[in-house]
């Protein structure tokens, strides 16, 4: 058993176990959720959160932290609901510009050797500012095709489940299994070593930020597909949610240790803890606190499993 349950496999397994536990609790509390319809409702908001968490994970992978992600997703949502809807060409250009801006941010952080936290903190104001200019009051409309995609009803398996699985697998293969992904992760583990092997750290940083920006854009688009319209603060909390989700999924703040599958599972788990609570029908005074308590419980469970593993 210990042969297979290495520290590494445990890192991926633990988040899955927490997810299973919380899902079981929800099924028990509200059997209606076990249906196609139920799962669809329960999970469709997981798609944008999962995408945002993946975006955050790419930044974590190079030992940085993105405090502007929520604002950035809000901005891309605003662009999607306005420009992309009204004048698709302009919208596509603007969204591409967003990805470029992220890449430029990566370059700036690398070249000037800046702490990512402050830079992204500053950028969060910039993103919100642009979003407010684009969409001073909530509104806009989701482009038809995005709406159609996000409300797709494939046979047998609900769309959100397919979507998050696809996201997890694609990123897993891209980052964890591909030859190029090795260099990207290596730059988080020991930048010096990667540089001495002849790779450009600048390129790595720029790539990682660009990919992160790309997933941020996807997240904003998916979000608008679900909400049908946007506002400048729509995804503000994605910053903390994405960090929490990635960490819950086994990523670490330094050392290039990340897990895309874990990140997606972490994001879904966070979403479900909220649902779990509404099924409990708590006293309103304690509803907020219960969110904290359940997060703590999920994480504590991780620790217990971890410990029993160590003992055996």
């Amino acid at each position, binding site marked *: 058993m210990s042969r297979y349950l290495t520290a590494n496999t445990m890192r991926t397994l633990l988040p899955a176990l927490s997810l299973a536990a919380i899902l079981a609790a929800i099924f028990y509390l509200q059997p209606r959720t076990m249906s196609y319809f139920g799962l669809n409702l329960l999970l469709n908001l997981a798609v944008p959160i999962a995408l945002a968490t993946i975006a955050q994970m790419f930044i974590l992978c190079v030992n940085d932290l993105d405090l502007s992600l929520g604002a950035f997703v809000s901005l891309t949502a605003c662009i999607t609901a306005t420009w992309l809807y009204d004048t698709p060409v302009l919208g596509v250009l603007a969204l591409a510009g967003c990805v470029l801006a992220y890449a430029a941010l990566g370059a700036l952080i690398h*070249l000037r050797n800046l702490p990512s*936290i402050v830079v992204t903190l500053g950028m969060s104001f910039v993103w919100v*500012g*642009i979003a407010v200019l684009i969409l001073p009051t909530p509104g806009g409309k989701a482009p038809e095709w995005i709406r159609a995609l996000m409300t797709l009803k494939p046979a047998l398996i609900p769309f959100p489940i397919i979507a998050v699985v696809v996201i997890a697998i694609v990123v897993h293969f891209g980052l964890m299994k591909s030859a190029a992904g090795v260099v990207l992760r290596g730059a988080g583990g020991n930048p010096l070593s990667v540089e001495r092997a002849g790779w450009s750290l600048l390129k790595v940083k720029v790539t990682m930020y660009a990919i992160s920006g790309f997933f941020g854009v996807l997240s904003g688009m998916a979000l608008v597909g679900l909400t049908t319209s946007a506002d400048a603060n729509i995804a503000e909390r994605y910053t903390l949610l994405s960090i929490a989700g990635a960490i819950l999924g086994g990523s670490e703040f*330094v050392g290039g240790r990340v897990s895309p599958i874990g990140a997606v599972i972490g994001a879904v788990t966070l979403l479900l803890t909220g649902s779990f609570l509404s099924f409990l029908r708590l006293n309103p*005074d304690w509803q*907020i606190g219960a969110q904290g*308590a359940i*997060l*703590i419980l999920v994480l504590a469970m991780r620790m217990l499993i971890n410990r029993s593993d160590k003992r055996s």
Partner: protein
Amino acid sequence: MNLTEKPWIWAWLGTVSIWLVIASISGLSAGTEVLTAAASFGTFFVLVAIGQMFVVTLGPGNVDLSIPACMTLASTVAMKVMNGSEAMLIPGFLIVVAIGLTIGAFNFALIILLRIPPIIATLSSSFLYLSTAIWYNRGLRVKPPEALAEFATGKIGVVPLLAIAVLILTVLMHFVLHRTYFGRSILAVGQNAKAAHLAGIPVERTRFLTYVMCAVLAAICGYFLAGFSGGAALNMGEEYLLMSIAVVVIGGTSVAGGFANLPGLWGAALFMFLLVTMLNTLGLSAGYRLILTGAIIVAVIAISGKKR
């Protein structure tokens, strides 16, 4: 020693240049008044940022996100218990400190016993504290005792009383950081926890004390802020979440851990206040104001960065 090598210099340079802009727009006397206002409000930023700075110094991943909830809970309970009575000032303060101690200890227990990463541990626990505050007083605003309000808003000449008190605290903390064993331990743990352990430093005790100190300072800040603004509100701390982090990092403390400085906190706190004030004064719309806020923060940081 070269001044440009001091990590805190950039925040101060930013502060001075922004003040010059304000003074040139609104005149010198308005500029002075703005400084007084900056000192009053910057004081609260500095108070929480001191605690946050020590936490951040403990190394990557260490950050306290429960500061706003801690401020809210402590001040809510204190205001209700004191119920405007001046005789209760001291008991109220002691309650605030006790709440800070409890919250710090609870945060640390989550981190160490349940091995939850600090960022999530403090985020989760903050929901609990906020809920407790809601349950305790349902958001009703109880007026602070008159004496507390007077102290919190009081001035000697143009200098706010509270700013003087926090300035003294800053100097004390400067010594704590650089000249005491506790401060040395924090810096050591932040740079290399394993090496610190093997150098005989009580790593976990250091981290415990740091988190507790941060919570106590946040609680005290809540107490005076409630006195300053006429009561505790459930959302009174919301702004302090990002602000405490911003002030710490703009002030030149390393997020990688192991380096900290106190002068930068004042520089950054004044900078953040003056920046918002300057943009308000310019009368720009919200969108441009936000964009400029961000752009100026990034610019200050980019200038202070070292080329690779």
